[in-house]
């Protein structure tokens, strides 16, 4: 490897890493939060069988899963202004990624909720819980634990997909690599460097997932009593 190339790689590393930390990561986190909240709502209106809303959820998921993410991104950023709705590039990206992933997370939540035996909900009714209480105290905590690995998978996909935001002028990790590649005429080295930084981020996320899965223990009403009955499992978590 030439000395020039090593120099470029070294000096560009932080130039790519910093927008990665400042832009790619917040973009990933914000979009993921949008997708979690909306995904859960979409799943809930489906499992609770609220008529009307249920059809809307179905259509929503059908559209957002059935069309390319980049097309959705372009519609929001380039298309909406012609209807008089102007959104800056960063919020447009958050919106597009969040709305898109919500459709996938809705399916993850829905199948996790379906996996909880209905007998537990019936038992909850028989001890005087209402449907929302059964949902929030019994079903969702269990469903969340089941959904967790798939949600995390989607988070890691999202991290990589945020590179598409480069196409709507968001200066994130990949955009920075593109700019430097264009300036230095070293596309191979620069894009490999960008790949390496994505790989570092996603590896960190995988570690985080393993760590959090270990922490995912049920919270019962009896956190204090746990010692008297001789169990030592830590009671943090959901």
């Amino acid at each position, binding site marked *: 490897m030439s000395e020039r190339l090593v120099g470029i790689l070294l000096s560009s590393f932080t130039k790519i890493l910093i927008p990665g930390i400042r832009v790619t990561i917040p973009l990933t986190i914000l979009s993921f939060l949008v997708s979690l909240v909306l995904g859960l709502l979409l799943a809930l209106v489906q499992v609770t069988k609220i008529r009307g809303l249920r059809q809307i959820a179905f259509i929503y998921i059908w559209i957002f899963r059935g069309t390319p993410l980049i097309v959705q991104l372009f519609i929001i950023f380039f298309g909406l202004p012609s209807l008089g709705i102007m959104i800056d590039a960063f919020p447009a990206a958050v919106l597009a990624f969040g709305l898109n992933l919500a459709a996938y997370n809705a399916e993850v939540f829905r199948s996790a909720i379906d996996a909880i035996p209905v007998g537990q909900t019936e*038992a909850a009714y028989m001890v005087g819980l209402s449907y929302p209480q059964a949902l929030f105290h019994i079903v969702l905590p269990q469903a969340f634990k089941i959904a967790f690995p798939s949600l995390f998978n989607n988070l890691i996909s999202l991290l990589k997909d945020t590179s598409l935001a480069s196409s709507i002028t968001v200066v994130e990790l990949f955009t920075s690599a593109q700019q430097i590649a264009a300036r230095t005429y070293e596309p191979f080295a620069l894009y490999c460097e960008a790949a390496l930084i994505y790989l570092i981020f996603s590896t960190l996320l995988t570690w985080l997932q393993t760590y959090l899965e270990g922490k995912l223990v049920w919270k019962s009403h009896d956190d204090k009593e746990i010692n008297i009955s001789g169990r030592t499992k830590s009671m943090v978590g959901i």
Partner: protein
Amino acid sequence: MLTVENLYKSFGDNKVLDGINVHVDKGEAVAVIGPSGSGKTTMLRCISYLEKADSGHLIFGKGDGAENYDLHKASSAEVKKLRRHMGFVFQSFNLFANKTALGNVMEGLVTGRHMNKAEAADISQAMLEKVGLSERMGFYPGELSGGQQQRVAIARALALEPDIMLFDEPTSALDPELTREVLDTILGLAKEGTTMLVVTHEMSFAKEAANRIIFMEEGKVIEEGLTSQIFEDPREERTREFLKLNS
């Protein structure tokens, strides 16, 4: 105390309950026996409104204070009130997998009845002691044997001080060596005078625990009577045949 009148229920064109009338007095233990598919589970589920009957009434109490529930169209407030009278023990336990044994028993008190946690914990511990599980309070359902899980489920129902306990084949999902501990627990309750309606396949248990027996077949009550009468001198031929096959 509890009277069920003219209970009908079909699934499609399968007539599962065909005009059931059942009565349980305060302090009585009534066993429901009958062949598989005769509608015993469905009856308990209609009584507790887990299943909506096609028609039928449930009367709770006696005289002026009696509550009358339409088992086809009760409002959600009525359903809540109706269920407050009942404890339900399922064949498959249905413990809350995300709660410890103690958490399972506390759930109805804390979330359903808004009792403070300390008081609920006291009551729940006492109930778990009663079913012989004081050593297992902090265990999750997945860490308990089937027999222990079912005893937690019994404690969970008892903690709410129901007027009547409904049991749906509480031991049929258990290995034979685990049924005894559960049956003994229920037998103990019967001896204390707990009002109960128990669907069971265990004839010797029915003989021992029940004051009265109801024999069901094809969605109908074929015969009912005192335990000794049913076992020693059944009036109906079908009852006699069933008992011959199941003893």
